[in-house]
């Protein structure tokens, strides 16, 4: 397979990846999808989960994204992530303690807004933990 996808992963803080790859596996809002060269025009939401970059028949990189938007055209694939962290940098212990803190936050929250933000953060953290568990298995 000669053709490649120009893949870009950007978070608001920086451009994380900009490379030519064989395939990208994105956790879409309505199910995971893979982007190969020549994909039709496509825009999808992204749910918290692990994004995989495939190159040369194997998984080159795994990155956790906490939601965002993905766009695909026949030549390129762009993922705008809210937050993106390489899997190697995730620390299960730290996340577990954060989940505990967030649960406390939800209990202590007084306004709907506070509760909502805490709940969203909790969802992301739980997804992180699941991703780690899946990677170990």
């Amino acid at each position, binding site marked *: 397979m000669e053709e490649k996808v120009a893949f*870009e992963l*950007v*978070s*608001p*803080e*920086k*451009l994380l990846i900009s490379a030519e790859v064989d395939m990208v596996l994105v956790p*879409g*809002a*309505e199910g995971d999808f893979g982007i190969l060269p020549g994909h*039709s*025009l*496509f*825009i*999808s*939401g992204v749910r918290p989960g692990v994004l995989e970059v495939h190159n040369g028949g194997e998984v080159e990189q795994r990155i956790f994204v906490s939601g965002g*938007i993905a*766009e695909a*055209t026949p030549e390129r694939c*762009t993922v*705008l992530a*809210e937050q993106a962290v390489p899997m190697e940098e995730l620390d299960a212990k730290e996340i577990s303690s954060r989940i505990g803190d967030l649960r406390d936050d939800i209990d202590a929250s007084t306004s709907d*807004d506070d509760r909502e933000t805490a709940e969203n953060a909790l969802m992301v953290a739980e997804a992180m933990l699941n991703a780690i568990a899946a990677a170990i298995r």
Partner: protein
Amino acid sequence: MSTLKELRTRITSVKSTRKITSAMKMVAAAKLRRAQEQAEAARPYAERMERMLGSLAASLKGSDGAPPLLAGSGDDKTHLVVVASSDRGLCGGFNVNIVRSARQLITQLSAEGKNVKVLCVGRKGNDQLKREYKSHIVDTIIDVGKPRLEFTQANTIGHRISTMFAEGEFDVCTLIYAKFQSAITQEVTRMQIVPFAIPETKEEEEEEEEAKGGIPAIYEFEPDEEEILADLLPRNLSVQIYRALLENAASEQGARMTAMDNATRNASDMIDDLTIFYNRTRQGVITKELIEIISGAEAL
């Protein structure tokens, strides 16, 4: 005429002022570099976001389903002016310029009979505006970007603005900030963020695409267009704010660096002048004493 001792004290005091200003200049230069890097790192996201929104907006053009954040609330009675300034002073004309532009906009809008609301981001903007427009100021957000400006902070502000919009508290929102050009020049910019202004280059691109013989891009959406737009638009708001705040932070440091550079130079000039004056005075005193001694000796 000042005595020698007074002059000496003055020279010492100007010298310590110079030490402070040159230290501040150095700190500002270091911070400026960091702020600039951060602003550059954030650029790709904003660009991609704009491109994506452009194609979305194009495919939604003409349909009635366009959400209010894109199409506007159908009114323009109430304006929200978001004034981004710094929390700290001693940065030359930085805040003054921003506030002047804000004041002009407020006066102009009030003259047109519109309601004006002001949201201040940064302490200094509030300080300078509250004397005249206290009743207009909705709130002031301070300590943004401490210790480091992060997207979540911009997101909080963006979230707040979109909530206000959803509750019908304003129809049009303009953001005023200083765009960073160089350490010497910062351009005060007004940017309309609600309703979202589709970048004008879009049409050219479209023509280009058509010229290439391709049919206009039709995207497939998952879930559907409206849901994605509903997610993308508030996020775009936050991204625009984030970008503006980053530019502002870089501008602030640039302005401070220049201001402190000037202050240091002025202090040096002053020290030189004072030193010359001091030496002259000292010489004068010595000459006077000599004359006194000689004329005393002659009198004997």
